[in-house]
């Protein structure tokens, strides 16, 4: 009885103020948070000093840091061994790996530019469509690994030390980042000390995902995970894994999740939503201006425009943007000196497309494969020091009017 009286003492204004703050701060808070390093310690995620920001594959990209993994024949390609060139092999043998980031040879530069300008024209010829749900089906491949309990015990110790240091220092952003970087280095050393010669075996998680994004604000969003499995590049890797006691390599996750949380379409562009993505500028100049302004606002001190643009391209090309916006995006990309072409390749589904790549200052290479005939994005991948870390293949996207139904 006293409790019920007390419950009613909660001032209404508290909820009103909280709601107002929530609405005002959400976008900025999320953007700022996602720019900061995450201290991942789950058994299949590890530490990455700096990670690209993808909406769709962050878990995968984070998982990658678990270890240096060399891509072996056929695994990432998804096709019969040797049938399609593995991405990592591309980067170690293709000429662009010796030309470096912005110093691309004139020939590959020209290829990328002319291809992108042609893709812009192609994109413009497509007709704008609409529906209730934007559907995307993708297949993701990323390395997985297991670290022994010894590692996690030590990692937890480091983590407590870090927390203590953070608490002592206060909550200034700069200090937080410096402390975080320091401990990320320590963790990296710890990880290396566990497997000085690299992990004893290689393994990948391959999984499909279907996603329905509601056009209507507050509509139901569904993400459905399917066909998750662990793949070993060779029988030797699998034997080694068994020798280690067959540790669990696949996290249990829900198969299908429905909710109605508002979601941004692009982490680097928190203001782009399902409601306004169709209203983005259709001219190169206007879109470039908007993206430049957004880039200027990003708080990341290590930000690189090439990289931001690459991420934004992936987000826009897999979202219900208008043909005009897609064309403008290709035109903006065409002007970037850092983007090079690796010529015609096959994606993991065996579809032909033109490969485009950009390198970051810290040794990552980001790749896109674009369909020549439709200018659609077929696949993107990220490689670190020539080794593939994630590969996402877009098998289908388009509008549908019913949740759970494909276009």
């Amino acid at each position, binding site marked *: 009885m006293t409790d019920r*009286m*007390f419950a009613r003492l909660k001032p209404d204004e508290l909820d009103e*103020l909280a709601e107002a703050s929530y609405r005002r*701060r959400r976008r900025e808070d999320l953007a700022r948070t996602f720019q900061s390093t995450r201290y991942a310690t789950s058994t299949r995620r590890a530490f990455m000093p700096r990670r690209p920001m993808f909406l769709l594959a962050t878990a995968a990209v984070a998982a990658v840091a678990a270890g240096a993994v060399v891509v072996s024949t056929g695994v990432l390609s998804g096709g019969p061994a040797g049938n399609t060139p593995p991405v990592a092999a591309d980067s170690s043998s293709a000429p662009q790996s010796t030309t470096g980031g912005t110093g691309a040879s004139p020939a590959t530069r020209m290829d990328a530019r002319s291809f992108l300008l042609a893709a812009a024209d192609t994109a413009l010829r497509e007709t704008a469509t609409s529906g209730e749900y934007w559907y995307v089906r993708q297949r993701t491949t990323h390395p997985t690994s297991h670290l022994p309990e010894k590692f996690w015990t030590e990692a937890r110790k480091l983590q407590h030390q870090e927390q203590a240091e953070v608490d002592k220092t206060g909550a200034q952003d700069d200090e937080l980042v410096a402390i975080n970087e320091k401990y990320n280095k320590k963790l990296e050393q710890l990880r290396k000390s566990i497997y000085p010669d690299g992990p004893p075996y290689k393994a990948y998680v391959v999984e499909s995902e279907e996603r329905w994004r509601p056009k209507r604000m507050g509509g139901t969003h569904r993400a459905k995970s399917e066909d998750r499995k662990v793949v070993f590049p060779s029988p030797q890797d699998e034997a080694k894994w068994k020798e280690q006691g067959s540790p669990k390599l696949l996290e249990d996750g829900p198969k299908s999740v429905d909710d109605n949380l508002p979601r941004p379409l692009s982490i680097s562009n928190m203001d782009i939503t399902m409601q306004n993505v169709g209203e983005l500028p259709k001219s190169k100049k206007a879109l470039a201006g908007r993206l430049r302004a957004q880039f200027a606002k990003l708080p990341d001190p290590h930000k690189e425009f090439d990289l931001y643009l690459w991420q934004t391209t992936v987000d826009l090309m897999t979202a219900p943007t208008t043909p005009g916006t897609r064309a403008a995006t290709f035109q903006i990309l065409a002007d970037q000196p850092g983007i090079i072409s690796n010529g015609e390749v096959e994606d993991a589904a065996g579809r032909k497309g033109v490969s485009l790549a950009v390198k970051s200052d810290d040794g990552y290479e980001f790749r896109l494969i674009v369909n020549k005939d439709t200018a659609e994005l077929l696949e993107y991948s990220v490689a670190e020091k020539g080794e593939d870390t994630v590969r996402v293949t877009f098998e289908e996207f388009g509008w549908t009017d019913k949740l759970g139904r494909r276009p």
Partner: protein
Amino acid sequence: MDDPQERFTGLYDRYYRNVLGYVLLRVEQGVAEDVCSETFLVAWRRLDELPEQVLPWLLGVARNKLAKQREVRFRRKDLVERIAALTSEQEHVAWDVAEYVVDREQAISALRALPEKDVEAMILVSWYGLTPDQAATVMGCSARAFNVRLHRARKRLHGRLRQEAGAAQRPVRQTSSRFAEES
């Protein structure tokens, strides 16, 4: 599927208002928002080790952050004064407490007589729906200590409310308030 950013966004959307509300009981809005953002930043950095019950954990982090800010350290009265200040005129309605009727002002006056930690204990259980175990985590004490505190808080509050009601010499009656107690 299990995208960290989505998972975090889910937590943020679900709990931001709760955490901010709790912090707002201690500091004004601008500072409260900063404390709240920092709290969620910690959650992001600890995303893989969050306990199953996230709200008590978040409130605990927020509480620690508040405690570390010397300028927002508050005296016992402040918590109740914040409640009083946040209360609007329309909320000044009457309740029946056992055979007595008290209004909001009297209720707040009764709260003033309680140790702050008692009030906080009741807030965590009553406003945030935390179990004693969870609330103990937030307040950094054992579940046993928390239960003792909560029990004492209820008893004291009940006693104070009787006094308040008695002091106002309200007649015993069946209330017509829409907030009437059923018991």
